């Protein structure tokens, strides 16, 4: 036995990383005079304790599925798209323009049009960084960070000017027409006489997010394009030798990534209870996508699980901040720890586990 079993790689390593992140978070709680165990209980209650809380957890998870998939697709091509935040904002802009401009008669049409516009705008926002990476070798990480800053500038400009209805105080677009409002999951549950998701905004977008997972799975592992993306990610020189155009595949992988991030807008802009585009529409989801993709090992199934976990963390953290004196930024700390342990210190976690498995494997081999 030369390697550790696959389940250890896929399950054990992330779980140990998560435990390490939890231990350090506990130290953080202790240092500000909070009982970590009490905090954990409060967060768990805040995440799934009531139907409202559960719904919000799922609502945030939907966001993180989109951004997690976006980061993962780029990761498969060995590209680090850190610009999810900006692409989400542009997606929101696209959706808002389409939904506000055209009086869609039914929400299905609005979803189709708004979703397409969101994906298109998200993809367009990554065109220049992708082009500069593919053709000029400018590092995608720096360019997408710059595009994040420019996206928030552009959004504030649009919301303070062209998209703001006359006489409105808030820096935001007008409310979207009632006909284009996406049905929330609670509307659907009510048809069966249940009040499962309360007044939370979790909506039909979660189905789209799950469909996107299936689509990404099929794309990456069952199409020629997916094969080319993975080949490029494994070895650029080998991919080129096999006749794969590095320029084209880099562009395409990043455009898909941007489109997926942009699609998040159907959830956080069109799907909320009073749908409109606000200036902090992304709310850090683009960055949480990095943690989600790393923890989910860039696989859609892993991403859904990690997104649920982060959805619970985000919602639980918000509740914790509401009832105690802990700032909501504790979520960012935990997110950072997860990124650190699963992304950068992966080897530190993996090597000892691997060693254990090797020793254990050798002993059983000797006994035989």
């Amino acid at each position, binding site marked *: 036995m030369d390697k550790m079993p696959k389940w250890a790689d896929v399950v054990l390593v992330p779980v140990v990383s998560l435990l390490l992140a939890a231990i350090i978070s506990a130290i*953080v709680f202790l*240092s*500000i*005079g*909070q009982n970590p165990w009490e905090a954990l209980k409060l967060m768990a209650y805040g995440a799934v304790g009531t139907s409202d809380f559960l719904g919000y957890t799922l609502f945030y998870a939907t966001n993180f599925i989109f951004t997690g998939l976006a980061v993962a697709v780029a990761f498969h091509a060995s590209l*680090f798209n*850190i610009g999810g935040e900006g692409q989400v904002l542009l997606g929101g802009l696209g959706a808002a323009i389409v939904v506000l401009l055209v009086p869609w008669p039914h929400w299905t049409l609005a979803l189709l049009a708004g979703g397409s516009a969101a994906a298109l705008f998200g993809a367009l926002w990554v*065109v*220049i*960084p992708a*082009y*500069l990476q*593919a*053709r*000029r*070798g*400018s*590092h995608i*990480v*720096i*360019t997408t*960070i*710059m*595009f994040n*800053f*420019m996206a928030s*500038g*552009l959004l*504030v*400009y649009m919301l303070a*000017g062209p998209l703001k209805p006359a006489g409105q105080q808030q820096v935001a677009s007008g409310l979207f027409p009632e006909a284009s409002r996406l049905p929330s999951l609670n509307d659907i549950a009510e048809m069966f006489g249940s009040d499962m998701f309360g007044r939370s905004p979790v909506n039909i977008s979660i189905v789209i997010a799950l469909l996107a997972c299936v689509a990404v799975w099929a794309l990456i592992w069952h199409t020629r394009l997916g094969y080319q993306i993975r080949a490029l990610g494994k070895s650029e020189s080998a991919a080129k030798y096999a006749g794969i155009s590095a*320029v*084209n595949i880099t*562009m395409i992988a990043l455009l898909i990534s941007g489109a997926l991030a942009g699609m998040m807008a159907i959830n956080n802009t069109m799907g909320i209870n009073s749908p409109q585009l606000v200036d902090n529409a992304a709310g850090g989801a683009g*960055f949480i996508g*990095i943690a989600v993709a*790393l923890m989910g090992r860039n696989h859609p199934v892993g991403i859904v699980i990690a997104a649920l976990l982060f959805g619970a963390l985000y919602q639980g953290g918000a509740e914790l901040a509401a009832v105690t*004196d*802990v*700032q909501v*930024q*504790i*979520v*960012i*700390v*935990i*997110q*950072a*720890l997860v*990124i*650190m342990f699963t*992304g*950068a*210190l*992966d*080897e*530190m976690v993996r*090597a000892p586990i691997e060693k254990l498995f090797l020793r254990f494997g050798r002993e059983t081999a000797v006994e035989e």
Partner: protein
Amino acid sequence: MDFFTFIQLGDASVRMAIPLLLACLAGLFSERAGIFDIGLEGKMLAAAFLSAAVSFASGNVWVGLLAGIGISIVLSIIHGLASITFRGNQLISGVAINFFAAGLTVVIAQGWFAQGGRTPSLPKDARFNGLDFPGALTRVRDKMQASPGMQFYSEFVSGHSILVYIGLLTVPLSWWILYRTRFGLRLRAVGEAPEAVDTAGISVVRLRYSAVIICGILCGIAGAYLSTAVQAGFTKDMTANRGFIALAALIFAKWRPWYALGACLLFGLFFAIDNRFQNIQLQVIWIMILLIGSAVAMTVYALRREKIDVLVLGGLSAVLAAVALITWFGTASGEGIGILAALWETVKVPSQLIQSLPYLFVVIVLAGFVGKAIPPRAGGQPYVKER
């Protein structure tokens, strides 16, 4: 614009440039040794918080500075662990450090001071105050009536905090270390060809750790400068993306100390202009010339190259041309005047655009159309010793 305004702008540029410069030189040491560091922002932020917190608690700003440098070095060593010892992804480690600092500073600040995620305001003697040179005027009214030479001396040369002068001295010092010492030669070599350094019997690991620790020290000073010299205390996210701008300045400076000074002063000037002039007006004709001109230039460039260049740059040109035409016709119909008359109208440049200019500039620099920047060859790759 009179001479004194000019001097004031220069003075503000220097103040704005110092944190950028320190962070930029920090990145320079790290990247020259082959360790990419996008965690400059996080290290500065953590240092800004801790130096303000410790200055407040101890009443001594120098103790605060040391604490800031300390926490910045701790984060550097974590980055070193991830990228040198465990050969992890340096970019991801940097991202994690940024988030860690962004979250933790606010959480701890609330836990310690309960003022909504910031430190209390520092009293005057727990800060770095401006040093007034002998003979320099201190009151603005006196300065305005003084001779140009005196204005230059009083406003531009004198009156900064000691960290500004330290920051400026760091430039020749970095140059001397990198280009005139054995350590500097080895440090540059380890970023280009670590295997050669290893073959010569010098420890790659030790050199790279030294580089990230120097990076930590400089980021620590930069953070302390923000919270104890520029402002009186820490506020949430007070580094305001300076760590990223510093990275951009580093690329613009082609990883050289003196160029770094120039790049940071330029970015400092951007910030100073943005702070001073809130309302920048431009004639429509200049907007047209600028936008249509760049659109034409890009199209001409693209047409001589491949299909993908035509698609991307052509599309971008179309967007620029559309923005230009919308501005033009929008002004004409908004003012109710003829199309030609509208060309001489002035319109206000959106402040969001002015604020985005440094970022836009970075992208243009990165595009490599303004001189090619070649990073250290072994940058970003962990070194695996041959067996």
